[in-house]
């Protein structure tokens, strides 16, 4: 708004000046007020989006796994496949978990005849967990936790990690079911046995 005012000759210059400056200040204040009011909704949205984004990034950082190109994964499968053909157990385990259908089937049939703690754990626990067939919810599966405990007793690293993951998973949920409570009790009693 442009300031256009004319005064009677008796109005002192000081008051004229004050009139002009008050008018300008009022317009400035109104303008700032409008800008702030207009930016309020985007501001609240920005706050909300930043929360969502940070939660997403936190989650992604926690579960970070490097992504490899298909070419690199193929080369890895080929190399590991050669090792598996020479009977390397760790190569067979890799293919059974991450190989293509053909490699997986072949590795699974060969692993049936090998008796090491890694292979037994794979056949007993991981194969059930990654099966395409629907299985019971792991958090409430007593058979699953019993198997984990039996391997954990032997010190098998992956079994202990899986036990910790299971316990964390149950504690994370807001509504712990009675079956999950029993699982927690079972894990706790195993830990108490270890301490005594």
């Amino acid at each position, binding site marked *: 708004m442009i300031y256009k005012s004319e005064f*009677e000759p008796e109005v002192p210059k000081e008051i004229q000046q004050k*009139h002009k400056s008050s008018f300008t200040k009022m317009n400035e204040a109104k303008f700032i*007020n409008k800008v702030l009011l207009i930016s309020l909704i985007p501001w609240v949205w920005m706050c909300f989006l930043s929360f969502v984004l940070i939660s997403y990034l936190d989650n992604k950082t926690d579960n970070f796994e490097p992504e490899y190109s298909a070419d*690199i994964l193929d080369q890895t499968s080929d190399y590991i496949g050669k090792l598996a053909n020479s009977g390397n*157990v760790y190569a067979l385990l890799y293919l059974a978990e991450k190989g293509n259908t053909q490699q997986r089937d072949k590795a699974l049939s060969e692993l049936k005849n090998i008796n090491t703690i890694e292979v037994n754990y794979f056949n007993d626990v991981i194969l059930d967990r990654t099966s395409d067939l629907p299985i019971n919810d792991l958090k409430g599966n007593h058979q699953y936790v019993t198997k984990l405990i039996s391997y954990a007793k032997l010190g098998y690293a992956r079994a202990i990690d899986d036990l910790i993951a299971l316990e964390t998973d149950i504690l994370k949920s807001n509504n712990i079911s009675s079956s999950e409570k029993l699982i927690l009790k079972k894990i706790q009693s195993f830990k108490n046995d270890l301490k005594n």
Partner: protein
Amino acid sequence: MNNEISQNETSFVSEKLNVSATESDISSYEKNIKKSRIKILACLIFMVISALVTLYFIVEQRTTNLSQIEKVDVSAYVNLQTALAMQGNQQAMIWLAKSGNADNVIFDKLRLLIETSTNPEIIEVAISLDDQLKVKDETHKGFNEAEIVVLKQRAIEQGSSKYLLEKLMGENK
């Protein structure tokens, strides 16, 4: 009041203002300035509060995630694995090294195991533990660069997909 002002504003061009009209204008302008300042302050307070609330929720969520992990008491597993590792259990050594509960004694045991074991995970955790100990303890004498290269190659030959992927990534860069 706004109507009064707009009437005054539109009458600026045509009418000349006398002293009392000018003073009444000034007082109404100042009232408006006061009102606008209060509104500006309210907006700014609201913005600061919404930013603080967002920050509170972010911190709260992170703390909840951490406390859920901390809720799980792993001391029993550390005791079990330490006892088993002292008896030479490979898996116990691997777990202690991976979970950050291993020291120089476990490192020395892993170093010896590398010579006899065919498990590539032993080399993987030994190199990773070596890195941790080098940061924690300046006197720690671990692997040198040449040894690490040889060990990684050996792990690949034993079936370590981790180092194989690392090597292929390096070659394809």
